[in-house]
């Protein structure tokens, strides 16, 4: 277990802890922000955002995602290697499944295809 790091942390008093994240109040503030963002998301159900609906939902989703990862999961304050591990997997998932998805949805229409063999 991380007794070594924790002993060290305690030895430094709470300085290290402070620089390693937020206070309780800070976390509550983050939660309020998240709640507001969620409210905006939900409001797309009640109000017509028109063409902005999908982009704003996606942006809100990404922002909420990032806030929880960076602050609640502490990634912003932790060793960079953890960010590498998680972000790499995430980016990989996005890229691979985007490719799979677009391939299955967009590239299969033979209408515009005149190379008989491949359509």
């Amino acid at each position, binding site marked *: *277990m*991380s*007794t*070594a*790091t*924790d*002993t060290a*942390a305690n030895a430094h008093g709470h300085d290290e*802890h402070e620089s390693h*994240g937020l*206070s*309780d109040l800070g*976390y*509550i503030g*983050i*939660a309020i922000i*998240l*709640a507001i963002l*969620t409210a905006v*998301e*939900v409001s*797309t*159900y009640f109000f017509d955002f028109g063409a902005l*609906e*999908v982009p704003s*939902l*996606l942006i*809100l*989703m990404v922002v*909420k*995602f990032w806030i*929880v*990862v960076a602050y*609640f*999961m*502490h990634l912003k304050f*932790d*060793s960079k*290697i*953890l960010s590498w*591990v*998680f972000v*790499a*997997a*995430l980016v*990989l*998932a*996005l890229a*691979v*499944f985007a490719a*799979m*998805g677009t391939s*299955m*949805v967009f590239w299969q229409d033979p209408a515009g295809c005149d190379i008989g063999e491949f359509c």
Partner: protein
Amino acid sequence: MADSTTADAPELAYGPTHYDELEHPPLSTGVSNEKLTMWSFLGSDCLLFGALISTYLLLRNRTGPDTHGPTAADLFDIPFTSVSSFVLLMSSLTMVLAVAAIVEGNLERCKLWLLTTAALGSIFIAGQVYEFTTFYREGLGYTTNISSSAFYTLTGFHGVHVSLGIVMLVSLVALIQRGSLTVDRAETVEIIGLYWHFVDIVWIVIFAVVYLIP
């Protein structure tokens, strides 16, 4: 340490520090093994949920000659799901407060926040159960059509993840109660917290792309 000059009795290539003499074991990255493990596992889980979410997105509107019944999207109760999403989101807050509590040495407060987190998670699960039984009554069973299979599989996997998380949270409380989990092992709570937050961020994605985005 290593003496490369030849002598009558050549020194060993390595030595003389024993492993047991090391004050702290080498942590080449500076991060504990457990934490690195959990983040690796979560990275792996990204791929899992990515595949499940993609499957749902690809299948949700597909129809064939045998298709019948509503799609999942036809039956969504967005206000209800918004509330349960909010509940899960707040459980992340209580989780983080639990970690903060034990890091500060307050085991009682930690237990309190852990139990609250577990309770909020249970409320979320209860909401899911209610939602699914309602869908079922409205004609959306698991085998009804392709969108239903995909929907229930995706949300079911997420629900199982949440449930396992609740079990772990309650176990943590029990361990603290038992005296096995002490302040010097605060990182354990943090690591379970990472899992819990992950389950939350997966829901953030699911809520957006499955429920809200038409």
